């Protein structure tokens, strides 16, 4: 079981958590995930996840024109998204705890 496989299920949660820290954009989100050690997710998956979260109303976005290139799309978490994040984190800590127990030598 590689990390990418494990990550798929929790990628939404991870992306929501990053954006919940403050308004940010795609490349910055990727860099934050990488810095946190969640590399190998794949840029496409992160952008796809952003799309899905926005469609679900968990995120809103705005375009910020850039001087040096294409406009950047900035994301913020909506109240619905925050609630989703809270529920998700609770679920995650339960799973994490349970797994921790199971995986004890």
């Amino acid at each position, binding site marked *: 079981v590689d990390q990418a496989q494990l990550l798929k299920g929790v990628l939404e949660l991870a992306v929501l958590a990053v954006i919940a820290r403050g308004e940010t954009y*795609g*490349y910055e989100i990727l860099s934050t995930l990488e810095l946190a050690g969640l590399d190998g997710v*794949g840029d496409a998956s992160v*952008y796809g996840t952003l799309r899905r979260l926005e469609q679900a109303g968990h995120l809103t976005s705005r375009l910020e024109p*850039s001087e040096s290139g294409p406009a950047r*799309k900035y994301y913020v978490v909506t109240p619905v998204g925050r609630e989703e994040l809270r529920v998700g984190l609770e679920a995650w800590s339960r799973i994490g705890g349970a797994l921790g127990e199971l995986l004890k030598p």
Partner: protein
Amino acid sequence: VTAEDYVRRVSLELGDLPWRQRRDLVAELEAHLAELPEETNFHERLGAPERYAADMRSAAGLERRRGLVAFLRARRPRNLILLVVTLAAIGLAIGAVAWIDSYQPIVFAGGTQLPPDSKPSAGQAGATVVFRRGRPFEYGITIHNDGRFTARVLGVPRSATDFFKARLYVNTPSPAENELPLERFRPFDLHPGETRWLVWKGVYACTTGMGGGGGGITTEAIAVRLGFLWRSTTVLIPLSDPLTITFPKGCPSKGVAPPTP
């Protein structure tokens, strides 16, 4: 691969998505590629464009769309509108051409100037006259523009069954349609609602090729050369009062001299 190439190939893979959605995704990818360090190898970092598109689809839950509706939604709205407008314009043009090609506003107006000595036809509408070679012949009908646009009367072709030699006259336009200051025919515009006399003045003559013996010819329609915009055509104007001519002594065609009395 350049960023442009990469984006184009991803965009192609997402070609089934609604246009705005694809535009947003592509714009975000463009912005992303612009952020990456200069020396980044896109293939190494992002995988093949097909792979990238597939991964984004699965993460975003974007299923492949099929069918006509998806195809139309994937077009750029501006292009769709352009296409519809173009098709409508072509349709209108075809319709206009078809209409112009079939426009025939000239009708028989009911007025008939019968040849001298004619009598009402027995048992049918119209009049009958007896053919008399060399005697004066005069015959007129009225035509009327029943349509909404001016048509040009270019001429009245001779018919194979003409039994007279005559010059064609037309009355000068006047407020009272039945007044008859006649002038030699030359092409004229027949305006909507306008009525004119066409009058033949000449002599009975054997131009028909009819052999000896009896029989008769009934003229039920007059052929008129009509001009309308770029088109000129021959139209048949049915007469409600057809003229019948009878040939008690026949009328041999030219070249075969008839017995002189």
